[in-house]
């Protein structure tokens, strides 16, 4: 299935894009998504980042749904 991927901050520079669609297995967890992201964007590996699904921070155990808005959230630095 497909999710929509948003990539912010230092991660968007590493990935070379701010948004894309991304293929994951049906019922994939956030943890599986993380592994697939590291394969597609090896340079993300050393970066510590959170994942938000539909604009909320989620744990690695959360299960994704078709067309979810998934965001890569590097450490925030507002203010």
């Amino acid at each position, binding site marked *: 299935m497909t999710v929509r991927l948003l990539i912010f*901050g230092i991660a968007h520079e590493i990935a070379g894009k701010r948004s894309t669609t991304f293929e994951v297995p049906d019922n994939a967890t956030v943890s599986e998504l993380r592994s697939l992201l590291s394969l597609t964007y090896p340079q993300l590996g050393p970066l510590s980042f959170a994942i938000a699904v539909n604009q909320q921070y989620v744990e690695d155990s959360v299960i994704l749904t078709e067309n979810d808005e998934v965001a890569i959230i590097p*450490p*925030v630095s*507002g203010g």
Partner: protein
Amino acid sequence: MSKQPSVFFAICVVPLDIVACESFIRSTATGAEVIFVGTVRELSHGKKVVHLEFESYEQMAQKELQRITAIIKDRWSPDSILLHHRIGKVKPGEIAVIAAIAAHHREQAFEACSFLMDELKRTIPIWKKEVFEDGEEWVTPHP
């Protein structure tokens, strides 16, 4: 208290306006206002900053602010909560963020405004890159 505080949130590409922010939160019912103004410093670790560049995940920022607002309302029952954050290029001396709380008593306003800034720095999805004369660097947060 079950009264809902007024909430003013904005992500702005234009300069932030302290007077506008203060007049949003002012009321004759409220005695205490605490306004935090974060400005861009000209030096970062001794290096001259040309400008900062901010980006945000605005829809999520709005949801995070709702979460933070609910906590602030429970703990301090303020009358108003305001957060205005600049995005794009911001030069040294310019304002990057204004956070403001209006409340009946000053302790509430100080604590709530300080908490709002702590939570902004901890969870609201906004990022900044420091641009120097000879390069640039995404800022990693300091606790």
